């Protein structure tokens, strides 16, 4: 793999100075993991230190840039603690220093104050800032001969110090490099950023920095904070003020393992990215999720870790024109996991195939380093509540399945995780996007939606109707086939769910292709779609209920106030078979474009209630957490005339029952 031109605009940002981020021997976060990583990259021919095509020079972040996130007194304290203590310092000065360290989150345990740490932490923050600026075309990222030369992806392994807070150091992190870089981007452009944190610990520092910022969506998949540091990251932490709905937390159970992790990740991340429509992806690839990691219990293998990278990479290409920066993060099995995981990340980013085996000479160099600490690690695994794995040093990039015996209670744990993911979907993914991205395990209907609604068959695959409006005639059509949707285009005002008309079109196409979802469209004779109604099986969150279907509606902003919504809804729900079903529509205020419409959420709520009331929907009080957590949210229900009383009762006892939230 010496042909460096196949790196597809990917850069690896590293400088030897970053290795000084070192809290001393025996500290879990040791820079030797980066030395081992670079050694592995070079020996397996994936990267060359002096290669001009993949290099990106960094510069330290300035005090001014750090203060975008950190408080001046904290930065001053870090600088002060960063200066080596004078030999002749009195005892009083020593005590004062210790008190200062404690005030700002430094202590002998996790994040000791070490000489030079301001410089190196600022250098790492600068690195991430350069990386993000480079892919976003800001001058701080350097100048390039042409647009084609501009990096599309950057990997900064030393970055990802996600626990650092505005006013204190925490969990091995001094300056929050991702937050500084994102804040700099927000200041310089109008871009929107999705931050995806795969580290096993909650990305609390970054979430806190952008908790009320609607231009940054933070998504963190982590081991639940019930026991684990930092203790935060609950599903209900969804953002504040105008940032409400843009903090996403997926707390997973200890011993989650690959299959459950992948199921949860795939049911959420793509749908969230579509609904947020970011300009760039910032991802943190802490590999402390691995089963061998001494600090955590998620118990993934390289299969799960590789899937994280692939998702981020693929989404960057699909939705962000390739703009993606990947950062390191945690990872405390320094020799067996970190080098392999991040070499894999670089291979994924630069689109190079991975060799089958780890280079022999690399194993010869690093296996002894692992052996030296292996015994201690085995002891620590045991006290952390894990079954000590007897695995030897790996010889391949991928893990061998036999080294990872199944954990007890696998089924029950994945069930809990599935409930968590279903709740996050209900809460934070707009309904239409949910219909286009069904979770892997839907409620296994015997037939598709069409057959279900036409039990005796139908003469035509779909009905149609002409609607006259002041702006001209519209065609209404139900069960729109994909072939039709492909020929239509989305009106410029169709953006309620995916934010861009082209994406909305893509979304509708996906829905049209799904047999589990009925799509009704309103379009002009010229082929512009101006409204849609979808009808789909209720999501996982409603698991256990029968005959419950969710309805969503959208009308282009250019075609409002013409009564189209009412007509379209009435047309879509005309089928007699719908009298056998319970239909519901959910309105969560943080998904509403109230700013674009210039009305209050309360007013918007009234509009929806009136629209659905025209089709026999009634507003229902509910204890459903996603509805009840905000007074403007609304649940509208229509129980069909022929619905069995028992089934209806079951539904109402669910929405009024003692909260479904007992476990949160």
């Amino acid at each position, binding site marked *: 793999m010496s042909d460096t031109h196949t790196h597809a605009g990917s850069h690896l940002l590293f400088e030897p100075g970053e290795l000084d981020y070192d809290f001393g021997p025996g500290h*879990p976060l040791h820079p030797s993991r980066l030395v081992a990583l670079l050694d592995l990259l070079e020996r397996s021919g994936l990267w060359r230190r002096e290669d001009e095509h993949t290099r990106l020079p960094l510069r330290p972040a300035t005090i001014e840039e750090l203060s975008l996130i950190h408080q001046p007194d904290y930065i001053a304290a870090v600088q002060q603690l960063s200066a080596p203590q004078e030999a002749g310092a009195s005892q009083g000065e020593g005590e004062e220093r210790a008190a200062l360290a*404690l005030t700002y989150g430094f*202590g*002998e*345990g*996790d994040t000791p104050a070490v000489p030079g740490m301001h410089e190196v932490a600022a250098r790492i923050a600068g690195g991430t800032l350069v990386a993000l600026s480079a892919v976003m075309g800001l001058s701080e990222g350097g100048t390039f001969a042409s647009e084609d030369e501009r990096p599309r992806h950057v990997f900064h392994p030393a970055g990802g110090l996600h*626990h650092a*807070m505005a006013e204190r150091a*925490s*969990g*091995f992190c001094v300056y929050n490099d991702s937050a500084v870089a994102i804040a700099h981007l927000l200041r310089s452009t109008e871009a929107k950023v999705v931050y995806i944190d795969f580290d096993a*610990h909650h990305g*609390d520092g970054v979430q806190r920095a952008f908790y009320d910022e609607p231009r940054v969506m933070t998504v963190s998949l982590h*081991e*639940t904070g*019930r*026991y*684990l*540091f*930092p*203790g*935060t990251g609950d599903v209900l932490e969804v953002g504040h003020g105008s940032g409400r709905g843009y903090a996403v937390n997926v707390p997973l*159970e*200890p*011993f989650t393992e690959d299959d459950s992790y992948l199921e949860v990740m795939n049911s959420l991340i793509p749908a969230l990215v579509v609904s947020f429509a970011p300009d760039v992806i910032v991802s943190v690839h802490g590999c402390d999720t691995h089963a061998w990691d*001494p*600090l955590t*219990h998620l118990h993934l293998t390289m299969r799960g870790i590789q899937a994280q990278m692939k998702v981020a990479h693929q989404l960057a290409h699909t939705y962000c024109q390739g703009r993606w920066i990947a950062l390191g993060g945690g990872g405390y099995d320094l020799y067996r996991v970190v080098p392999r995981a991040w070499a894999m990340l670089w291979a994924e980013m630069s689109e190079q195939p991975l060799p089958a085996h780890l280079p022999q000479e690399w194993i010869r160099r690093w296996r002894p380093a692992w052996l030296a600490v292996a015994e201690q690690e085995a*002891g*620590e695994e*045991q*006290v*952390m*509540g894990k079954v000590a794995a007897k695995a030897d040093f790996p010889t391949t990039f991928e893990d061998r399945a036999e080294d990872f015996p199944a954990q007890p*209670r696998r089924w*029950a*744990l994945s*069930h*809990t995780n599935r*409930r968590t993911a279903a709740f996050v979907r209900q809460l934070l993914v707009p309904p239409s996007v949910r219909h286009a991205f069904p979770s892997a395990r839907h409620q296994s209907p015997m037939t598709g939606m069409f057959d279900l609604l036409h039990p005796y068959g139908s003469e035509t695959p779909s009905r149609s109707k002409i609607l006259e409006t002041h702006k001209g005639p519209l065609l209404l059509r139900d069960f729109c086939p994909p072939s039709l949707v492909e020929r239509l285009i989305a009106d410029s005002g169709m953006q309620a769910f995916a934010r861009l008309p082209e994406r909305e079109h893509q979304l509708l196409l996906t829905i049209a292709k799904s047999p589990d979802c009925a799509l009704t469209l309103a379009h002009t004779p010229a082929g512009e779609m101006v409204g849609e109604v979808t009808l789909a099986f209720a999501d996982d969150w409603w698991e256990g209920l029968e005959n419950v279907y969710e309805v969503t509606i959208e009308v282009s902003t250019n075609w409002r106030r013409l009564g189209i919504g009412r007509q379209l809804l009435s047309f879509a729900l005309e089928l007699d078979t719908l009298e056998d079903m319970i239909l519901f529509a959910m309105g969560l205020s943080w998904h509403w474009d109230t700013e674009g419409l210039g009305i209050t959420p309360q007013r918007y709520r009234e509009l929806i209630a009136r629209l659905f009331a025209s089709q026999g929907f009634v507003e229902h009080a509910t204890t459903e957490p996603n509805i009840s957590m905000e007074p403007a949210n609304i649940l509208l229900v229509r129980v069909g005339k022929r619905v069995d009383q028992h089934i209806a009762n079951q539904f109402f006892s669910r929405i009024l029952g003692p909260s479904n939230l007992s*476990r949160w």
Partner: protein
Amino acid sequence: MIVREVMTTNLVTVTPDDTLSHAVSLFRQHQFHHLPVVRAASKPAGTPSTQRRTRDSLPILEGLLTSSDIDLAVAVETESSSDALRRPWQERRVAEVMQRATMRVTPTTSVAAAAQILVERGLNYLPVVEYEDAEPTGEPAEPETRAFLAGLLTRSDLLLALARALGAYEPGMDLTVELPGGDLAPLAGLLLMAKDLHIQVRSILAAPLKGNVPRVATVRLGTINPAPLLVRLHEAGIHYIFADPFVEGR
């Protein structure tokens, strides 16, 4: 813990002469359900204005106005036919509909006692007042002792105090140790080890009680790396619970 440490002091208030329409707009604007009614205390002449915020700068509590008092005023207006009440409710004065707020606590009341009052009386808030000093003559205090409003204690204040006491505002991890027969030695051992290892303790909760002795203690530790501590607990034979997966229906 005493009330002073957890009460809300930055208060929005109304005066007895304010109109109900003013009060309603405050309720709407702040999404409150209750407002203290106060009047400014007349300052003794010559009080230096640079003085630290003392009792003298506090307003005198007249009563409390709740949103249901206003609901009632609105209802009375629509139902009543007498001319005296014919005035639109918006123009009526706070003093006409407010309550005297006889349940009060002082800043030095214990939080536990205040919490009990809230729960037993089904209240959502309590005014926190300081009373005028009794005359140095030793005369019994007059029944009309003036009460200065020092703050308001709400249920939210108590919940925040609870969260703070649990260490929820500090990043940390939770570790539970068993205390067989209420023996506190394992907890003491854990704390000494944490001190040795420079691990900060964010909070300690010894509960639940059974036979009047705590059976477990939950300690919140400010560390991301518990392994060294756990190794020592293990060596010392102290039983702990960490990273126990949650399984529904258990």
